[in-house]
């Protein structure tokens, strides 16, 4: 399976795909489908992707109605996050950027925590015990190095765990991406670097971000395997991530996965992509929607129908309403804004805290 990377060499213009836009398995890659990825698993994965899509839409609505701050939508990028979620275990570490609602939730962050974060409550980034997810990183491209560091720690402890870090296409222009890739090549950490190439960094298209044909090919300069996978194809995403994670667990080192996908929404709720993006391009991508593709696949197996979909939607709507309530109910303790600056507050900070608490109580 590890010859996947030579079979789909990005420098040869290869993109790894298994499920086409009509929901048909491609014959040339069909043999790569692992036995554990059953139709039943694909069906439950579809359900989770639908839940992500609806939770994402709800976050947008909450912002529009003033109940949430700025939010960065994952719409269109559900497949790579789902594929990764199927591969990662609880003991593994997730090091996200900020467009990862799906994988964060799959990895164990309760959806109400994710909402609380975007509502402006730092407690949203305090994962429950046993959930290994580093807080959202807003500084673009800075977190991949943490993924390399954590993966290196796993390697030093001779563990079979893996650190998976996410970032966007824009992040690959940051110097820290190149330092992370260089260190990944040198130290061979238990790390998987996943670039969600959604074609846009706010208003700058991928073609203006780098002159390289692909992002995946950049890996080769650092002696790290790199692959471009159809990021809207759940099955291919699963296989690519599984291959990379297996490499990392067995101590063979890091992998760069470029998930070729599309940002169907705006950059964030503060953005209006109509100003800079041709609507025809969005129309072109709509049929490639990762959920539509799976609907077609499942319908072909008699595992999807509109009635089934409607039932799920109704149930998820109710569930998400309850999540919103729980997110809003997460308390905000005012002294917390001081208390986590250091393990122990120095005297001058204690004095400032007391002054602050007295001020807000009057």
């Amino acid at each position, binding site marked *: 399976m590890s010859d996947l990377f030579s079979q789909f060499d990005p420098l040869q213009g290869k993109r790894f795909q298994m499920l086409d836009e009509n929901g048909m398995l491609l014959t040339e890659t069909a043999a790569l489908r692992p036995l554990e990825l059953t139709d039943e698993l694909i069906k439950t994965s579809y359900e989770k992707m639908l839940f992500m899509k609806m939770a994402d839409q709800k976050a947008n609505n909450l912002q529009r109605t003033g109940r949430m701050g700025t939010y960065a939508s994952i719409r269109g990028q559900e497949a790579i996050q789902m594929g990764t979620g199927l591969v990662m275990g609880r003991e593994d570490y997730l090091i996200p950027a900020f467009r990862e609602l799906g994988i964060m939730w799959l990895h164990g962050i309760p959806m109400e925590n994710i909402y609380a974060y975007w509502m402006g409550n730092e407690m949203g980034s305090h994962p429950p015990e046993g959930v290994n997810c580093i807080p959202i990183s807003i500084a673009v491209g800075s977190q991949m190095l943490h993924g390399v560091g954590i993966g290196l720690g796993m390697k030093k402890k001779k563990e079979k765990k893996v650190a998976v870090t996410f970032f966007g296409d824009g992040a690959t222009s940051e110097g*820290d991406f190149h330092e992370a890739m260089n*260190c990944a090549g040198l130290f061979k950490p238990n790390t998987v670097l996943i670039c969600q190439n959604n074609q846009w960094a706010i208003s700058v298209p991928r073609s203006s971000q780098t002159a390289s044909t692909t992002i995946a090919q950049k890996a080769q300069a650092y002696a790290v395997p790199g692959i471009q996978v159809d990021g809207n194809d759940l099955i291919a995403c699963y296989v690519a991530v599984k291959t990379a994670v297996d490499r990392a667990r067995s101590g063979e080192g890091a992998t760069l996965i470029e998930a070729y996908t599309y940002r169907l929404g705006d950059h964030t709720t503060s953005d209006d992509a109509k100003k800079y993006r041709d609507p025809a391009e969005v129309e072109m991508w709509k049929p490639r929607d990762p959920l539509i593709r799976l609907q077609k696949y499942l319908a072909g197996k008699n595992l999807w129908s509109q009635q089934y979909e409607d039932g799920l939607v109704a149930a998820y709507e109710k569930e998400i309403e309850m999540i919103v309530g729980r997110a809003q109910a997460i308390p905000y303790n005012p002294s917390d804004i001081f208390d986590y600056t250091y393990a122990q507050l120095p005297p001058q900070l204690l004095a400032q805290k007391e002054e602050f608490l007295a001020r807000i109580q009057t």
Partner: protein
Amino acid sequence: MENQKLNIVEAINLALKQEMERDPSVLIFGEDVGKDGGVFRVTDKLQEQFGQERVFDSPLGESGIAGMAIGLAMYGFKPVVEVQFDGFYQQMFDQMLQHAARMRNRSRGRYTVPMVVRIPSGGGIKALEHHSESIETYIAHTPGLKVVYPSTPYDAKGLLTAAIRDPDPVLFMEPKKLYRAIKQEVPLEDYIVPIGSANILQEGTDLTIVTWGAMVRETQAALESIKSNPTTSNTSIELIDLRTISPYDQTAILTSVEKTGRLLIVHEAVRSFGPGAEIAALVAEKALYSLKAPIQRVAAPDITVPYLKAEHWYYPNAQQIEQAIIMAMS
């Protein structure tokens, strides 16, 4: 307790060695710190003793050093990394400010970054551009980081031990001009000099001088001159080695100024917005009515550090400090 005469380089090396023996999670990495033992030999022979898994060369990229250290620290290691020269800290500034300083707060205590960055600091060694900077203001202005700056072998060993055992990120500034300039009896056993506590090197009643790093020695030279001059020899001066820039020891400064009524701050960093401004503001806020004279500052001018031909004009010297003492007393 057994002692040995050590210089600052040797004292730091000993602290590193002892902490690595005590705590298997301590890792050392950075540029040239392995076989070469660092360009100042501070990590000399540590790779030989502890192996390449724990002491290793990083590629030449400071942001990468800091970023990996942050990941390792969050994963339970205790990285003690070296940035080769003060001027190249700027390349890791982003990681330290955006992540190391904030992770405890960002995750509300779930993830912490107990790491140490050792920074050979300050000028006076006739080096190239970017090798002689005093960056304490840049780093002390970041909530979540601690900044220490010892001036003696004893303090260097005790403060580094404290820094390595600290649960938060500590930036450990090493006065490179003093690396081998002084030897001192240093206990061979491990001990701690607490972070956040200043040291009163000399007690006095007429004037408080607050300084740190290489300027401690320069100030001591000025004090010798003051003592030997019959017109000034009666001046009783309290000399405070601040030792920690953030969080700094406000009590030591205020207690002293309330006693002496006069304050002089000496630092190598440029004058405007330097640490001296913060200390002067503290005294103005909390001890203004104790003051008998305007607060004095001796600092580098607000210019780029000149190259070696002119660096001696840049750093505050004993003569300037002496003049400032006379000004404060007049």
